């Protein structure tokens, strides 16, 4: 047991350590004091577009000639940042720059830390504000995996048909089964055996099973399905990322969630309608040769479609008869841009293909010059309905011939589509094509949009609540526990500083419920002090000396504080595991707050008490 005169004194290094922690907390929390500037961030759309001082002066002169006030331009590694005094100027400038700079640059809205450059040079950033505080859109999207598998099976149907035909195996039908798998019907058992052997060799990843005397069923293996699903998800994420770049968002979050979902967060996006149009629709193209041998109208009227053709409709609803064979699909497209056709002056989409696509396009068109080729625009949509309380989902496809044009020449790597209604349509089509073809239908299953002003209001209300709460608690504690109450209040302020520092350091997302978590931990941090002080009072009433009472108070209350904080931490961790978006923010601030409050309320206030009272002769405690 320790003797009374060394009671309540820390060794010097403990004070130093606590002081250092608070000091670093202050430094890390500092950037939050300066707020953020509305800004516009410009980067190159491709890697070879330079963002240099020449570009900076070009942008500066655009802003100057249009008399758009701005705070300053900052040239960073591969982007140019322009700061503005308010968001109105920011929006105006962004619109203007988008128009002037064209497609070579990505112009995005951003909030840039207004902290002095030496803080930013140290890599210190303010807390990362969630969408509910800064405004923006949050989407949760679901990839239709059933459709993905179906697409894979469809491609196998084509493949199998080709191989059987090439090897002259006689079959009566090849088709996808409604329950999954591909079914092949042969002419006789000899052909069946021949076919089975051929496919076993060439498509050894498919599992074969005999479903009838003349039929063979081929199914995808579980690993392959998983691989295709992962691939579909990754491709969707990549495509979404490209599309988000088109939209111009500074710090987008595009992340996988679970096995078939994607979270997209677009801070600062104002035009949510346009964002949804671009993100939500999935479109692809198919190039098919026209059926030149049969009469289109007649086929439609009699509903008699030749075996090697398919009947489509164009935008005016007129029948179009196309060959069943797809010459080229949209995933061969590497770039597409809209512009004006130099000959007709009408809107046009210029398309570039990859090597494989170019080869197929050449092969497909070289013998068909003078014939017609159609572009089929395929839109995949999914809808979820609630029928009699049950959730039902249905996917549907809209196929439309958007263009039928005569092949003027052997087409290769670059060519153009004309015959579009408007420049806007050309632009949108080019945009969707450029972002790449989405392989799987995707559905928005959750959306949360917060307007920028509502975000500001949320911040203001959140911080006002936190500030008032801090004041009220400090006032109450000082009134009830006098000097010790002041110490608790100081510890409380230190707790808030450390909490903010931890959030800034971790760059954890601060949400409105997150601020509620901060407010709640303030109440709970003081809880620990109340426990200690009540215990000290009790010890004093029991006739203990002030020093012994302080010692016993801190010592004995600690177990209780640990128990009570741990149980809350368990609940907070459960919340984190369950949490979506804002709720996760609550769990994060609550958990960190519990940890920092243990430090400040127990160790921090103990250090202050020791400094004030430690090693002194006390008659009376002001508690």
């Amino acid at each position, binding site marked *: 047991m320790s003797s009374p005169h060394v009671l309540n004194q820390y060794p010097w290094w403990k004070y130093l350590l606590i002081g250092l922690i608070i000091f670093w907390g202050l430094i890390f929390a500092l950037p939050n004091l300066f707020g953020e500037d509305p800004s516009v961030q410009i980067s190159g759309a491709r890697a070879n577009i330079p963002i240099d001082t020449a570009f900076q002066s070009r942008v500066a002169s655009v802003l100057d000639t249009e008399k758009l006030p701005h705070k300053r331009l900052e040239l960073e590694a591969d982007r140019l940042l322009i700061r503005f005094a308010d968001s109105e100027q920011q929006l105006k400038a962004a619109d203007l720059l988008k128009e002037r700079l064209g497609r070579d640059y990505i112009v995005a809205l951003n909030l840039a830390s207004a902290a002095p450059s030496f803080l930013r040079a140290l890599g210190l950033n303010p807390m990362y504000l969630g969408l509910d505080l800064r405004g923006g859109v949050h989407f949760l999207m679901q990839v239709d995996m059933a459709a993905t598998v179906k697409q894979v099976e469809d491609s196998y149907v084509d493949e199998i048909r080709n191989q059987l035909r090439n090897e002259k195996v006689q079959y009566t039908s090849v088709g996808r089964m409604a329950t999954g798998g591909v079914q092949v019907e042969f002419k006789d058992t000899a052909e069946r055996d021949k076919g089975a052997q051929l496919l076993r060799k060439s498509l050894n990843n498919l599992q074969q099973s005999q479903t009838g005397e003349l039929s063979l069923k081929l199914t995808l293996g579980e690993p392959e399905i998983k691989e295709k699903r992962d691939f579909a998800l990754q491709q969707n994420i990549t495509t979404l990322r490209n599309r988000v770049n088109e939209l111009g968002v500074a710090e987008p979050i595009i992340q996988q969630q679970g096995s078939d979902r994607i979270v997209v967060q677009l801070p600062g996006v104002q035009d949510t309608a346009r964002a949804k149009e671009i993100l939500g629709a999935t479109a692809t193209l198919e190039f098919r040769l026209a059926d030149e041998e049969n009469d289109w109208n007649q086929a439609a009227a009699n509903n008699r479609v030749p075996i090697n053709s398919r009947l489509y409709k164009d935008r005016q609803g007129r029948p179009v008869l196309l060959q069943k064979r797809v010459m080229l699909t949209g995933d061969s497209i590497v770039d597409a841009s809209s512009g004006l056709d130099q000959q007709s002056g009408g809107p046009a989409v210029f398309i570039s293909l990859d090597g494989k696509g170019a080869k197929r396009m050449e092969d497909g068109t070289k013998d068909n010059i003078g014939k017609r080729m159609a572009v089929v625009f395929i839109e995949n949509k999914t809808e979820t309905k609630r029928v009699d309380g049950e959730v039902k989902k249905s996917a549907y496809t809209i196929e439309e011939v958007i263009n039928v044009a005569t092949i003027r020449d052997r087409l290769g790597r670059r060519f153009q589509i004309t015959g579009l209604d408007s420049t806007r349509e050309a632009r949108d089509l080019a945009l969707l094509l450029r972002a790449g073809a989405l392989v799987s239908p995707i559905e928005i299953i959750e959306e949360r949009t917060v307007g920028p002003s509502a975000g500001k209001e949320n911040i203001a209300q959140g911080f006002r609540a936190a500030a008032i709460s801090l004041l009220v608690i400090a006032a109450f504690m000082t009134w009830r526990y006098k000097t010790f109450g002041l110490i608790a209040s100081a510890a409380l302020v230190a707790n808030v500083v450390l909490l903010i520092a931890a959030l800034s350091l971790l760059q954890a997302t601060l949400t409105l419920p997150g601020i509620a978590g901060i407010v709640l931990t303030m109440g709970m941090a003081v809880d620990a002090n109340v426990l200690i002080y009540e215990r000290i009072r009790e010890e004093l009433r029991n006739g203990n000396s002030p020093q012994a009472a302080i010692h016993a108070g801190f010592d004995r209350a600690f177990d209780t504080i640990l128990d009570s904080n741990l149980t*809350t931490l*368990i609940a907070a*961790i459960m919340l984190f595991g369950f949490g979506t978006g804002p709720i996760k923010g609550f769990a994060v601030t609550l958990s960190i707050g519990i940890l920092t409050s243990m430090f400040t309320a127990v160790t921090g206030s103990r250090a202050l008490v020791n400094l004030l009272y430690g090693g002194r002769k006390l008659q009376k405690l002001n508690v």
Partner: protein
Amino acid sequence: MWRFSLYNTNIDFLRWRKLAMIWSVAVLLIAIMALLVRGMNLGLDFTGGTVLEVQYPQPVEIPQIRDTLAKAGFPDAQTQHFGTSRDVLIRIPPHAEQSNAATLSNSILHALQAAEGGAGASLARAEFVGPQVGQELVEQGGLAALGALAGILIYVMFRFEWRLAVGTIAATVHDVLFTIGWFSLFQIEFDLTVLAAVLAVIGYSVNDTVVVLDRIRENFRKRRKGSAMEIMNLSINETLSRTIMTSFVTLLSVIVMYFFGGSVMRGFSIAMIIGIVVGTYSSIYIASATALYLGISREDLLPRAKETADDHP
């Protein structure tokens, strides 16, 4: 001065334990009845659907907006003012036929802007939750609450003794039922933030209870005389000042949040306020009374051999 009256109290709390039990059982029956009969007024997060907050540059009339929405094909939209007469809150239940709800918020906003006097209408907040997401959240939320309860039960059993653990869980379940029963009875909207508050109430309620239990354990070990009931009463009295003080301080911060935190945090604050108030009552009554009914005695809490070493000097 009232602050002194909290010390050296000698209230025979547990004498009233029967009455408290009857009261609690009655209240919980009402809560369960309310849940069964009225159900929860589940928010958008759980039901799915669409909520829009639209801001107008000038005050607008609700009937006029209702008209516009009905004409635009949303006859079942609920419309109300929200905060000021320039802010309108529109709720649209999950539709069976109009299901492509992700585009819904745009079409509604366009309809409102096209209507007379709606030119400057702007979207402050829009939320759409698909039906499948809502169902998942209901399941996950229930699981999270159960997980938190189980985790805490295990912790308390490990730290204390099973009778006290059961008492703690009884107190916590009491608080949770009371809180959601209140939300059901008064049909206050129950959304994700309220669920977060309920989980925080679970943590907080245990926090409060554990302090009383700690003292009960300490006194059982320290005092050789007195019945279990006497020692529990003494412990409750000794910790009374602390129990009320900490609840009061936390309550202060939550009340501040209720008044200044804005509309989004209102449901959260209500749940916390209720949870803290009943949590204080339940940590005094439910936890100890349950342990008492389960027949707790001094022997159950005497330190085992290995624990004597770190017992307080």
